[in-house]
């Protein structure tokens, strides 16, 4: 891993020439932390070009999402926890910067929705966006005995939770 610009060629590296972390450093750190010990369970594909992968980490699902939008927000669901009775972060908005995999959003109801708003609403073709790096948007977790996934929607919140892959 080239850590600093210049060592691997022009403009490569996780840190700039002054030693400051670049967005790639943040992304790397978020992924290394968020997916440490995770096991891949299946792909996930949503509307508007949003796609990602579902992972299982210590029995809890973790979802890594991509979207073609330049910037956006993701809000945690406003429903009660179906299993434990705890309320999720009601309406709390989380900035979703394309340089980060986080913050993680707890979605405790498998039927809950998480809204992913976009700045310009642009929808791209998944293949193109995949090929050109549409951007990792968020790591999201769900908690539940059956580990059903309760993520994600784009713009109008029309997308709803899907089942845990393979179940």
């Amino acid at each position, binding site marked *: *891993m*080239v850590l600093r610009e210049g060592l*691997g*060629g*022009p*403009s*490569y*590296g*996780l840190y700039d020439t002054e030693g400051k972390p*670049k*967005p*790639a*450093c*943040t*992304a*790397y750190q*978020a*992924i*290394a932390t968020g*997916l440490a010990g*995770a096991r*891949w369970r299946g*792909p996930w594909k949503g509307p508007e070009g949003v796609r*990602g*992968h579902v*992972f299982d980490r210590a029995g809890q699902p973790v979802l*890594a999402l*991509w979207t073609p939008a330049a910037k956006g927000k993701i809000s945690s669901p406003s429903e009660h926890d179906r299993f434990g009775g705890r309320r999720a972060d009601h309406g709390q908005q989380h900035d979703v910067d*394309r*340089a980060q*995999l986080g913050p993680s959003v707890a979605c405790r109801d498998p039927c809950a929705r998480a809204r992913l708003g976009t700045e310009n609403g642009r929808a791209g073709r998944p293949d193109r966006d*995949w090929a*050109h*790096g*549409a*951007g*990792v948007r968020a790591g999201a977790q769900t908690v539940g005995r059956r580990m059903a996934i309760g993520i994600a929607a784009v713009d109008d919140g029309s997308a709803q939770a899907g089942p845990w892959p393979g179940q």
Partner: protein
Amino acid sequence: MDKYGDSHKQIWITEVGWSLADGVNSQEQADLLAQTLVTALFGPRETQGREGFFGSA
């Protein structure tokens, strides 16, 4: 690899990187690194470079 009967072989990813000098910006550079890590290192087994990974962002 499928065509030549090498689909069973593992791939060692020796280097990945996207230079800012090639027209990507720092955010896109982060995106590409993140997608590569998620897909290749943590993703489906058939796409994993389990033996090693060397990246340059």
